[in-house]
Structures are given as C-alpha cells and as structure tokens.
C-alpha cells in the first residue's frame, strides 16, 4: 500500500500485490537510465457521514416525513413548493406557511436507469421522475418502481411507498409506485437506511445524517511509482530537479519551485537527521502508538526535502533538532510499495549535525 493521508477511519487504501523482493542496496549512486513502467494505482474508497443541522423549514418537513406525512411551503406567489424551500426563489423572502400535501401525485417527466449506481433509491432498473404531489405546484425528484419503460409515462399517477421505519430523512419516501399498483411486483431492493438522529423532546427532527461513500482509482505519478517500487525492494529512491538540482524524496511530477518534473534518479541511504519535530501528547482516533511519541521531519543524507516519519528508540524528550537517525525497517516479508516499510527512525548515536548544515532545509 502506498502512503496516503488518513482521516480517522473514513479513508481506506487497499494493498497491492507484493512485488518480488530484490537485495537491499543502501549505497549512494545515480541512475542515468529510467525505465518506463505503468504508474501504480489502487482502489481508493472515501466515506464520511455528513451530519447537517436543519433550519425551521426543513425541520418541519423531516419531522413530518417521520410521521409519514409530506408538507410543502407556500411561496410569495401563492404556489406550494414541495419539497419546501426556505426562501422564495423569486423574492428571497423567508417562507413560513406550511401546507400539507398528498402522497399521491402526477409524473411530469421521467428518465430511465438501467444500471442503478450505489445509493440510488431502487437497486434494480427504475425510472427517475419529477412528481407533482396533489396539493403542490412544484415537483419532487424521486424514483418510481416500474419494470420497464412501457410501464411509465408522463401524466401517470403515482403514490409514495414509505420506508418501513421512517426516521425523518428524504429516504423515508423509499420510492414511488404506480397509484394503481398491487403487491404483485413485491418490494424493490433498496440501499441501506441512513442512521437515525436524536430527536428533540417534542419529536422534532433537527438533524439529518447522510453517509457519502465514493470509490476511485487513485493513481500516483510515474516519479512516485518508481519511488514506491524501490521501497518495495528496501531502497530509498529520490530524484533531482533538472533546474534547481534539489533532490526530492518522494520525487515529484513537478518541482514545486520550477514546475518541471524531477528526472535524474538518486539512490539515497536510509540515514539522515531530524530537522524539526513535535511530541504528540494528544490521543486521537486511529492512533497506533501510545503517546507521548515523536513525529519528526527526517532529512535523508543527500536529500533536500525532509519527509514526516516517527522517531522511536529513545525517550521523547531526548529527540533533538540535528539528531542523527537511521531507518528501522519492518521484516522483509512485510514490505509493500509503501514508506510504511520503514516502521520508524531511531537514533544512531552519532554526534548531532550542526545547525548550519540543515538550516536551509527547515
């Protein structure tokens, strides 16, 4: 797995198949030939439960949904908006007059989904429709459960199929069915329900939670790919910017100073110094080490840009700027295309580097 910022448990990066291992090389030399390989990529799933507080209009709407009722709001032109809007779309006036409407309505337009995506209200082919509920003047966007495009048309009457346990969320309207539909089609497959939120004493729903999950194929640059593949072989591989000649590890698709890709590969040792550090005393979600411990910027010998890593192997209060450190590698059988192959850095016991030698790397 390649390095990836983690925020709580919401971000996961799956692992790669482990590449074949090669002998460890820790000597410094420069490669003049760079072989082109396909950049590394991996599935990336991100997720977050968006928790949103509601104003008075949507609080009323969601609370009514929890009671299997649908409520709109009257605009300044007298039209009833369903779903309700908080402010008039034309005058921007704050709206307050709630109007209960029917859970039966008329299809104004529709489109067909033959391959539903994750999270959509019906997990088999279905129609989206704009539906004007009886008593409303604007249309609600929702799903209609019919088995083919032959079964739906503009002007068709549809009614709400309520979720079994309404919680005060738009998905309490599970989907719509033709108004005259019997039970022959059965329940449509639906996505997981969002979590219910805590209700006020009077039952008001003042918060909604909407879990969002997204899937990506995350790619790293060609330069980063070579660096990660080298790590899988126990090597630290940087690259030199052709213009400013700084050595970057990890190498970059563009030198942040010059805007050109780093090119010449530079094999770096796994020793270096602590440029600056902080002592972590605060526990947080997902923490792997018992505080206090030290997170430090490590500048490898021969590199110009430090990277963040852990310093262990001594008391936190013994870590110093300029302290010499060496990588403590995990057992070889655990190596992946990741800087996590280095479990941490630990002191070498050598004399500290003088401040002037790293002042310009801070």
């Amino acid at each position: 797995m390649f390095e990836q910022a983690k925020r709580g448990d919401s971000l996961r990066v799956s692992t790669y198949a482990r590449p074949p291992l090669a002998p460890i090389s820790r000597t410094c030399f420069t490669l003049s030939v760079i072989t082109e390989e396909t950049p590394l990529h991996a599935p990336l799933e991100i997720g977050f439960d968006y928790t949103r507080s509601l104003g008075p209009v949507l609080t009323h709407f969601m609370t009514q949904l929890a009671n299997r009722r649908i409520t709109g709001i009257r605009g300044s032109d007298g039209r009833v908006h369903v779903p309700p809007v908080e402010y008039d779309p034309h005058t921007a006036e704050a709206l307050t007059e709630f109007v209960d409407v029917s859970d039966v309505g008329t299809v104004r337009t529709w489109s067909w989904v033959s391959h539903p995506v994750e999270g959509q209200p019906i997990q088999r082919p279905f129609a989206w429709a704009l539906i004007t509920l009886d008593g409303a003047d604007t249309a609600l966007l929702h799903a209609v459960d019919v088995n083919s495009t032959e079964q739906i048309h503009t002007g068709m009457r549809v009614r709400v199929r309520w979720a079994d346990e309404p919680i005060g969320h738009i998905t309490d309207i599970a989907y719509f069915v033709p108004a005259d539909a019997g039970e022959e089609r059965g329940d449509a497959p639906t996505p997981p329900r969002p979590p219910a939120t805590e209700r006020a004493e009077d039952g008001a729903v003042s918060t909604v939670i909407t879990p969002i999950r997204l899937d990506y194929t995350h790619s790293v640059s060609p330069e980063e790919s070579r660096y990660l593949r080298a790590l899988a072989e126990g090597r630290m591989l940087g690259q030199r910017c052709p213009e400013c000649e700084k050595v970057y590890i990890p190498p970059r698709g563009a030198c942040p100073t010059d805007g050109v890709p780093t090119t010449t590969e530079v094999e770096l040792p796994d020793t270096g110094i602590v440029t600056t550090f902080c002592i972590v005393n605060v526990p947080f979600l997902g923490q792997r080490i018992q505080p206090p411990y030290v997170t430090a910027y490590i500048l490898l010998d021969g590199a110009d840009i430090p990277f963040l890593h852990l310093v262990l192997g001594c008391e936190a209060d013994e870590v110093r700027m300029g302290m010499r450190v060496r990588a403590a590698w995990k057992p070889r059988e655990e190596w992946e295309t990741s800087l996590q192959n280095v479990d941490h850095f630990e002191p070498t016991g050598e004399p500290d580097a003088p401040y002037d030698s790293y002042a310009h790397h801070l």
Partner: protein
Amino acid sequence: MSNVAVVGFAQAPNVRNTQGTTNGVEMLVPTLAEAFEQTGLTKSDIGFWCSGSSDYLAGRAFSFISAVDAIGAFPPINESHVEMDAAWALYEAWVKILTGEVDTALVYGFGKSSAGTLRRVLSLQLDPYVTGPLWPDSISIAGLQARMGLESGRWTEEAMAEVAARSLADATTNEHAQRSGDAGVAELLANPVVADPLRAHDIAPVTDGASVVVLATAERAREIVDRPAMITGFEHRVDSPSLGSRDLTDSPSTRAAGASAGTDGVELAELHAPFTHQELILREALGLDSGVRVNPSGGALAANPMFAAGLTRIGEAAKQIIDGTAGKVLAHATSGPALQQNLVTVMEGIR
C-alpha cells in the same frame, strides 16, 4: 470595459482515461509550457493565477494545492482557486485585472473525470437535504430535462441528433477532440436509447483533460499578440437549485447573462452543452439565429474535461479572434445540474 483581453490558449489531450494523478500535474506541466511559448511570457510575468477543479472529482482533499506544483510556485505567487469550472476562475482573474492590481493573469482548469464514477460523483453538487441523498446521476437529470422538451414540442429527437452530427463532424478537424465522426442524423437515430430518452450521441463523453487561458490588460495584450480577443461583455447568473420548481426547458440565467454581456453581432459561439438538447436551450436563450456558427471545435460533445471544458470554450472562441477568422465571438460555460449556472463572455477583435 474593453480593457482585458485573452492572449493565449492551450489544452491538454482530451482522453477517456489518463494514467496521470488526479492533481492534474502531468496534464498541466506541458499545457502551461505551451501557453508560455505561445505568449512569450514566463512564470514571473504572470501577476495572478486562478484555477478551477474539484476535490470530489479527485477523491482527495486540497488536490488543487498539489496542482500548484505544476506552476513552480516559488517564490510565492498570487494565486486563487474556485471549486467550479475554470471559466469562473477566469471571471475572478478578469475582476482581478480590472482592479488594477495586476496586468496579466493565467487561468487553468483540470479534471480527471475517470478516477471515479463521474455521473455518480456529480450528484454531490445537488441540494444535500432532499435531493443529493437520493444520488440522482447527472445523465438521469439531463434525461428528465430532455423529455420535458421532447414531450412539450420544444425540440425533437431529430434536432438533438442534428446537434450531435454537426458537433462530431466539426470535431474531425479538432486535433484535441476525444470523439468525432461523420454519422448523419438518420444513422445516429438508428442507435438505441441508453438512458431513455437519451442516446449515446446525446451525452458528452467522460473526459480527462486540462486547459489554460492567458489574460492581459489591453496595453500588455497588444505587446503579446497582434489581435487580442478583447473581452467586451462578461456575466454569470444562476437558477434555483430546486430542480422541480424550474422550467427545465428554458435557461433564464443564460438569457440574463447573455443580455448583460451583449450578444448582438456575434458571428460565432462556443457553447458548453454537455447534452445535445442543452445546446438547443442555450441557442434559444442567447437569441442566436441560424447565421451564428456554433461550436466549430465540436464543443463538449467532442470532449468534456470536467472543470476545464467551460474554460476551453472561452479559449476556443478567443482563438478565432486571435487567428483573425472572426470579429466578434461568444463563449458560454455551464456548471451544476441541468444548466443551473451559466456564464457568458463576449470577445471582439478590436485594437
């Protein structure tokens, strides 16, 4: 108001799937270099930088910060970003130049649409209380809009196919196009619907890409190119996010932006219409008659790099002025579902 001009435009190859990162660096480095070569400017000549991109498209936080690496932003630069199509970044840059603080600006947009499932990711731009949680995909929403027009008699399948046929034919001479072809209307209509009522030709492709536009004050512009594309009208407007309360067969925000920008005498228009029927809505709202040449580049139906395609419309239209092939052009950009937000810029070849 004729004191800012477009002086350069470059774009990355528009492709279905680039191997590059979602921060766009691999697409931007050569494209920025091309814009510099075209204008003779260097990084240090640029007074202000503004970009358009989206973290939701990239699947990572602050992806636009990584993109800044492509500039080589040291010593520090004067930089901003919009989470919108970069046409809106260009608006910000235009305002920045009008303030008199800077006399040049470089605008770029980029998007790796292929990293996720684009039509699903785009549902996150919807109202997050009553619409977004249902995950309506962008193609389905456009389908609702298309059917409204078809059933009300506002347009026909033939008219939609004509838009596709003309766009794809024009795209055959655009080396940057992702999709092109010479199929006629009858041939296109023989294809099946893929998202009823839409056929494949009605839907812009999923595109990875990037583009760059360089702006300068009139004085600087004349030093850079013989025939700068002077911006003589610029406006952007928005319609309600409540889809069910809009007349989806019309675009009042485009009409208002066009009226403000001033469309009289426009010879050519680059319209950002990711769906065929949306071009029909835009032409009507902007009052473009049949004499106006629309989308000689092939438009978004030929390539639709998210967060760059609107900026590309401005670049393509400006190029027609800079090349001397047109005297007054219009460029349009859209953002949001079913043409919710619209931007119109008018450019003229005046010195």
